[in-house]
């Protein structure tokens, strides 16, 4: 095996850095945009557009290394297609929310799909990053190797940072082979029983790589090298979906095109501890959950009720999609931080964006 040849792409580092330096001096806020597919996520940003889409191209990919390095503007779809040609994939199964989604936006948003429950978040697969800071510095952190403890792990810090520390220029991600076998099961079950079933199965080492519950129906995905799967299928029970039905179900969950999400506005995302998730979800009518209950979706519900749920159940809530009618948002969309932690966020932001011009307010009003 060796490096895979890929189209050269386009390097806009110099122009982007020049643009950011000028904006920094003029204190002009910038809204960092890849494919603009996740504009709904986080708080709205008022600022001039800093477009990363033109800064694209796969730089290095050697399947035997399990690493891909690409410029931030590279289309997520292109990366996934390239990996698929070599029997590999992004382990965290990121949602794209649109064909133009980019690698940089995917990492900056830090969102993961159904497989997160088994394989972990975006952060776990970030090996290195090149960052354009708010004052126009170009910094490289991490690298392309599996184990690397030289210097602070800034590249992982950038996963989910929503562009408030800088614009990603390049990212190196660990990738994994596609599992040789996959089974998807569907059965009717109420929410609490489903959470108990999934928790018990996970604890016994059943290779669950996705779960989605909505309207009394549970879908479970198991993956493995193949023959072993049939032994564990009965521990979940229910009907086996054929390959294409299974693929389209998980795609609809990941991309939120499943009927549950169709009119779910505002849509709240709750991150819940396994032991309280079931009880918490009884408090709402329009509920779906993934990750064995650790990620729940609630809609048509007041903020006060959400607050009550997270106060009693633990975890935290995010206003994931606002009501389409509401153009701006006055409050926060992410759960508030304790004062000392917010202070630390401000201090970290100043390290990378001293003038505070990059995606101001995207994460929190004054950050």
């Amino acid at each position, binding site marked *: 095996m060796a490096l895979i040849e890929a189209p050269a792409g386009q390097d806009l580092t110099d122009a982007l850095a020049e643009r950011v330096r000028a904006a920094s001096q003029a204190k002009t806020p910038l809204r960092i945009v890849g494919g603009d597919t996740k504009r709904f996520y986080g708080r709205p940003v008022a600022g001039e557009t800093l477009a990363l889409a033109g800064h694209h191209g796969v730089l290095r990919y050697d399947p035997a*290394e399990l690493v891909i390095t690409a410029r931030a503007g590279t289309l997520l779809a292109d990366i996934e297609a390239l990996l698929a040609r070599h029997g590999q994939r992004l382990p965290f199964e990121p949602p794209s929310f649109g064909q133009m989604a980019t690698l940089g936006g995917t990492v900056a948003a830090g969102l993961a799909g159904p497989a997160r429950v088994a394989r972990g978040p975006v952060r776990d697969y970030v090996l290195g990053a090149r960052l354009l800071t708010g004052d126009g510095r170009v910094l490289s952190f991490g690298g392309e190797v*599996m184990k690397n*403890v030289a*210097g602070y792990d800034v590249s*992982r810090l950038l996963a989910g*940072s929503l562009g408030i520390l800088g614009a990603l220029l390049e990212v190196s991600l660990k990738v994994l082979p596609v599992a040789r076998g996959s089974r998807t099961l569907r059965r009717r079950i109420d929410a609490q029983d489903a959470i108990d079933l999934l928790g018990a199965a996970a604890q016994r*080492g059943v290779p669950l790589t996705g779960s989605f519950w909505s309207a009394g129906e549970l879908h479970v995905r198991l993956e493995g090298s193949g023959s072993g799967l049939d032994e564990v299928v009965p521990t979940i029970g229910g009907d086996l979906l054929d390959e294409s039905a299974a693929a389209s179900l998980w795609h609809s969950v990941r991309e939120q095109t499943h009927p549950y999400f169709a009119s779910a506005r505002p849509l709240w995302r709750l991150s819940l501890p396994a032991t309280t998730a079931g009880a918490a979800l009884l408090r709402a009518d329009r509920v779906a959950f993934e990750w064995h209950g650790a990620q729940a979706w609630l809609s048509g519900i007041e903020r006060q009720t959400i607050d009550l749920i997270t106060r009693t159940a633990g*975890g935290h809530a995010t206003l994931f999609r606002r009501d389409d009618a509401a153009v701006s948002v006055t409050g926060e969309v992410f*759960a508030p931080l304790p004062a000392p932690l917010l202070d630390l966020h401000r201090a*970290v932001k100043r390290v990378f964006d001293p003038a505070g011009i990059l995606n101001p307010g995207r994460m929190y009003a004054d950050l």
Partner: protein
Amino acid sequence: MAVDAALLRELGSVLGPGLLSTPEACVAYECDALTAHRHPPDLVALPTSVEQVQQIVRACRRHSVPVVARGSGTGLSGGALPVAGGLLLVLSRLAAILEVDPRRGLARVQPGVTNLAVSEAAAPYGMYYAPDPSSQVACSVGGNVAENSGGVHCLKYGLTVHNVLAVKLVTMEGELLTLGSETGEAPGLNLLAAVIGSEGLLGVVVEVTVRLLPIPRRVELLLAAFDDVGRCAEAVGQVIAAGIIPAGLEMMDAPAIRAAEAFAGCGYPLDAQALLLCEIDGLPADVDDELGRTRVVLEATGAASVRVARDAEERSRMWSGRKSAFPAVGRLAPDYYCMDGTIPRRHLADVLAQIATLSTAYRLDVANVFHAGDGNLHPLILFDAGKDGELERAERFGADILEACVAAGGTVTGEHGVGVEKLGPMCSQFGSAELAAFHALKLAFDPAGLLNPGKAVPTLARCADYGALRVHGGRLPHSHLPRF
């Protein structure tokens, strides 16, 4: 160095007998496992509660006294080496396992709990804690967080950063922060990722929530012998390219094989130039399937022999050679110096060849036993510190190996940390802009710069000296060696 009397009184009232200030008592803490560097601390604090840690840190902050946190002192890079005029904060008495919950798949422990104790506490529930550094009997979970420790199962199960859900951190201001959560997610920036592996420079970890995994239903170990190091290195990439992710994929060269066999009688083929230990785990039928495919790949790559451990007893004997390789190699010479660079796997054969060339040039033997699946090299340089100039020669040899790792697109430390040991090589890996950003990030957490000062990140001045030392007439040492 004289300790401020007011500080001594303050700490004494907080800690009572948990404060050591006499040279006789403090000398036991003069170094960690990097014993070439020693500095007896002026003060040693042994707190038994989180509140005490906060009080100690606040007192030190007021008196501008540096604080160095220490777990079990098993670190290999001098991260817990005391600093002049500072206090050594020993967390070994914060050693309670607060909670083990199989249903939530987690354990909540204090930082002084040993790595192995977590797995032992989880075992009755059929679960374990995945990171398994070789010092796992003794090393502490807090120390693992500070170093982002690895082990032999990282390729499949990740490093500490992949297995820690949350930490409680005392900042140098004495604030208690929670980073992460039991679901592994928290609002805001991913500061937990920055803290893991920060070598005690950003805060003092006082509680850790780790993820527990179910013990795999079936484990098999395969041993492949090669009569050529390069072919063995090739095989590593081939296994992974075939879509197989072994739980462990370890390589040993001839000197390491012979030393391990002499030490542990583990049944290694003594005529082999290199061997691979490949562990496969998972569902029973899947393991059978992967084992078969792995064997095919290894035979196709030219393995001289491939065998699978017959039973748990043979498996543990085959592992024992690998696990005792460091002490085994230690018997070959009065001293050894363990390196820790990581490189892309495709350069394994080339870098191993470079190490062999350097070994001849420096007239020092080297044994290689390492995490091949991760590309994480552990060359053990053999020397005799009693012989004039050998320590210096070993250190120069080691620095050259790290240069070769950086040149191959790798890193100067995969899992042992920078500490005081690799400050020089850090200058090769990072530019001044990145180093300046690291220093700024530290000050965001620790504005007074009192936590473990001088470790992990070199000053720009030191890098200027390091460059002057290593580059003569614009040429790197050993410029006749190929660099890539």
